[in-house]
């Protein structure tokens, strides 16, 4: 038990599906090498926003999932299930434990199966409604990422699917923490997943939040923009997809079975702005930072690294930078992985949390890719531009979402 009377919660497994690696270690190596997952989506014929960072799957990996489970999976369900299976294997959880009711599954996404939803409407609107498969609905629903992973692993505990746009993945980890800390579950497979679709990509372009969107440029010229978090030349995000799934586990349970521990979840907070649709708000972010420190019972001085939300939008990066400047000054190194991976929306919080755990294990901080000239409105922060060796005892993960929703999570190195 912690001082607050809650059970202590540790992270004992991780799995990813991403544009830059099929395992956490492979992803980390490619991030450290400065790779960028963004490419031009030549397969999207009719879109004003052709840039994206799509997940790369190993050839025929989907065939490793029996058809009876695979038939209800669109891409987001598949990503989620693959990463969840990898996380459970990484944690060495037995099939018996997974199916025994003491393990839950909480996985969120922004859209559910956005590609499957679009496909359904295309069939309906073209008068081919009779061709819609019986399993299509299950690929579309907003909890498709969660139930598909849960079914593949035969999980019979709590199955939930928070949906709060880009904060979905981190909210899922927070909910999982609460389920274990409160004694409801011994372990929870949790995180976020997202699938790209031209329809969602174009939505960011429409509101000038995308790196594709520069006025007066042709479709071809729009393909040159990379996401540049905190940079003076940043002009918006690039959507990516994939999944980041973790195993959270009650400390005593993990110790009793000799599990390898990545770190401890010591704090979580989520709050609304009380207003706002698409724009972050520094004062609400600041409140979320205060709430997470209060939840963990630590002072800001105890935090050694911040994994920023920073998607490379003009307004969002400015507001996050303002909040971090007020909260930390220039004392704490801050970096964003959106330059490498694009913005994986509902997957981003959990995916970037996994990378941050590896940074903590390796005692190094990965820099923000494509950050060349720090923007004036993002100044007054410590923004590494190359890999920095640094002991990380505690780190903070930020996520801020459409609808005015903020989420923050604190992890520490595990100490008995």
């Amino acid at each position, binding site marked *: 038990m912690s001082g607050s009377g809650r059970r202590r919660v540790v992270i004992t497994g991780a799995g990813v599906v991403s544009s830059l690696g099929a395992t956490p270690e492979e992803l980390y190596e490619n991030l450290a090498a400065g790779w960028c997952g963004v490419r031009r989506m030549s397969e999207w014929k009719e879109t004003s926003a052709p840039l994206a960072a799509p997940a790369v799957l190993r050839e025929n990996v989907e065939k490793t999932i029996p*058809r*009876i489970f695979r*038939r209800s999976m669109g891409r987001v369900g598949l990503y989620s299930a693959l990463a969840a299976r990898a996380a459970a294997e990484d944690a060495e959880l037995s099939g018996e434990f997974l199916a025994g009711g003491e393990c839950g599954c909480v996985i969120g996404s922004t859209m559910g199966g956005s590609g499957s939803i679009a496909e359904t409407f295309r069939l309906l609107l073209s008068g081919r409604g*009779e*061709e*819609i*498969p*019986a*399993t299509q609905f299950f690929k579309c629903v907003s909890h498709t990422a969660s139930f598909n992973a849960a079914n593949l692993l035969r999980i019979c505990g709590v199955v939930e699917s928070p949906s709060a746009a880009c904060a979905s993945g981190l909210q899922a980890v927070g909910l999982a923490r609460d389920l274990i800390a409160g004694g409801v579950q011994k372990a929870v497979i949790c995180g976020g997943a997202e699938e790209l679709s031209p329809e969602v990509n174009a939505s960011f372009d429409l509101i000038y939040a995308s790196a594709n969107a520069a006025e007066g440029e042709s479709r071809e010229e729009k393909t040159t923009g990379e996401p540049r978090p905190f940079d003076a030349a940043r002009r918006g995000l690039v959507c990516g997809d994939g999944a980041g799934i973790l195993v959270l586990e009650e400390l005593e349970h993990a110790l009793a079975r000799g599990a390898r521990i990545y770190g401890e979840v010591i704090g979580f907070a989520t709050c609304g702005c009380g207003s706002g649709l698409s724009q972050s708000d520094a004062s609400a972010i600041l409140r979320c930072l205060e709430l997470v420190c209060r939840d963990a019972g630590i002072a800001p001085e105890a935090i050694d690294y911040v994994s920023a939300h920073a998607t490379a939008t003009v307004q969002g990066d400015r507001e996050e930078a303002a909040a971090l400047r007020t909260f930390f000054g220039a004392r704490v190194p801050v970096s964003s992985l959106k330059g490498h991976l694009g913005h994986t929306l509902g997957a981003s919080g959990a995916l970037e949390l996994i990378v941050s755990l590896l940074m903590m294990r390796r005692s190094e901080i990965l820099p923000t890719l494509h950050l060349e000239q720090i923007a004036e409105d993002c100044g007054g922060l410590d923004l590494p531009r190359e890999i920095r060796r640094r002991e990380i005892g505690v780190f903070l993960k930020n996520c801020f979402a459409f609808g005015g929703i903020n989420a923050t999570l604190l992890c520490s190195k595990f100490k008995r």
Partner: protein
Amino acid sequence: MNSTFTEMLEVPAEELSPEKEIFKDLGLDSLDMVDLMIGLQRKFGISLRQNEEIRKIVTLGDVYAFFEKLEAKRRESAASSSGGE
């Protein structure tokens, strides 16, 4: 017909014999049956969704018989319509 089972529903070819019950022996369920019908609709260019006979299918042999009957009906109506010209 069998290729729809092997390709779409990934049932091993050696499992496909007429006496096999679709749910019990082949491990399929009602959702698979709907998708099977959609696949066969596409393959044979006919609409099956409103056909009540589908609900009576139990074995793979029933599926074969259902389509044989459908094909016979189609030929019959084709013959009668061409005979009227």
